[in-house]
């Protein structure tokens, strides 16, 4: 999880990834960030995040992103 938060902070350092649960709902992340995060996660965890997983539920918190990565690693 810490590793993931470091990766996210590398992309956008002014967001409280440790505590925020409204990253999408409060527009703390925009579409530019999402594309960069997906590219970084694909490389780092050797997964392929499909467009159908780009939903607020999967990106509203670092924990949600972590759960999505875990699920995709299991599935792929």
């Amino acid at each position, binding site marked *: 999880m810490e590793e993931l938060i470091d990766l996210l902070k590398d992309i956008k350092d002014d967001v409280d990834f440790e505590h925020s649960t409204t990253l999408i709902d409060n527009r703390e992340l925009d*579409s530019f960030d999402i*594309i960069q995060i997906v590219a970084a996660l694909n490389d780092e965890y050797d997964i392929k995040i499909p467009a159908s997983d780009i939903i607020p539920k999967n990106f509203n918190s670092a924990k949600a992103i972590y759960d999505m990565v875990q699920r995709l690693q299991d599935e792929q």
Partner: protein
Amino acid sequence: MALFSIKFIGFVCITLVVYYALNKKVPGKQWIILLLASLIFYHWTGKFSYIIITALTTWAGALLSLKIGAKYKAIKKDKTIGRAEKKVVKKHILNQRRVVLLAVMLVNFGILGYIKYWSTMWNGLMGFLQMNPGFHFGHLLLPLGISFYTFQSMGYMIDVHNDKYPPERNFFKFLLFVSFFPQLIQGPINRFDALAKQLFEPHPVLFENIRYGMLLFGFGAMKKFAIADLLNPSVAAIMDKGPGDMPGSIMLLGAFLYAIQQYADFSGGIDMVMGAARMFDIQMAPNFRQPYFSTSLGDFWRRWHITLGAWMRDYVFYPFALTDSMLHFGKWAGTHLGKHCGRVLPACVGNLVVFFLVGIWHGPELHFVLWGLYNGIIIALNDLFEPVFKAGLHFLQVNEKSKGYHLFLILLTFFIVNIAGYFDRITDVSKSFHFLVHTFTNFEVSGFGATYHSLVYPHLSDHAILVICLASIIVFINSVLQERKIDTFSRLADIHIAFRWAVYYGVIFLTMASFLIPSGAGGFMYANF
């Protein structure tokens, strides 16, 4: 059948009585009444066969996709099969499901393309090549709501393909999702997971739903008739006239009036159909969120025609931006052109693709393509040059959080939207550019008064101006309150009875007054799409 007609109001009243009466006798079967009403409505207003083809192919395609997908689920649980073998099977099954998805999309976008685009494209191509094939394709009559229900159905098909939710097994229930009558005229483009549950669950009669629905319907009617329709003749007088020696200031007035007309027409129509649906205790997806309070063109498109924007975001923008080649492009741009370009360029290209398609969605004519690209290019430039703008603001010591700067951004965005109207409202592209150039090179404020009197005034009487202004003030106050997250239509029930009825009578009076003033306007603008 017009939305604001005795026939439609009578139709809704009878359907409401049967709908709520049935809930007492046979709970859970009210959807059958909605389906029958929707089919009757469509029979009266549209061409029946196409919507049945869309519903049938999408319903069957989704079930077939589920059936193929179920094969993998069975294999996945089988512990005797190895991981590598499962991967091969998974890929094979995914390919089969992709074929089903593509086939359904091909049929439905094929029908839409043939009816909406083929004659224009063919005749345009023959004209361009200066060929005469000996026959000519006439324009086909566009079935009511075909762009809306096709997109709604294809969104469902893609969601089922992605296992977002299980498909609907009952064809007649699915047919209701596609043909639910309030959404047929001009959207919104609803999502199955949000709408279907509401359509099929029991609904006891609640006075609040009827009151809220009627108020929303009446408010939408006021926007449509007391603002949009009354502005129609003066907008036409300016925009349909050749530029000639018309001052640029009058052209800009035409674009301004068109922006007001278009918002009042489209959002008014949406309010009316949302109100009609609300009377049946159905809440459709919101399509507007005070778009003229936007602080950038990107923000505007998150507030205007929201359901089309969301459809494009989910089914075009992200699938395109997350392709391997676009992700590689982002990395390449980050390495060679700097961090900022790496961040924004892939999304800029994605936005250009989306707005090209949004333009085409409105029609095959060149002016719609240019209008779409204008939006895409402005948004892309705004994102690309953001560091330059920030540096400029810092240099000028502008406080970005001040109310003055916020207001400046709202006015600037509104101006940019007004200019877009030149390519949207004017169908002749060379004339659009002429208007655009004239606005900036020949603004001629001194000629405004005389041209207004001779060109606009005959089409915009003092009575019309009074009705438009009063209705616009009501719409503006409502928009300000809604921007402050106040649900005005709910809150109105709690305020003093005298004020409440003053608002009700005001809305009714202005709508009725508009009927006494000739406008020459017809149906809804977006019903043509």
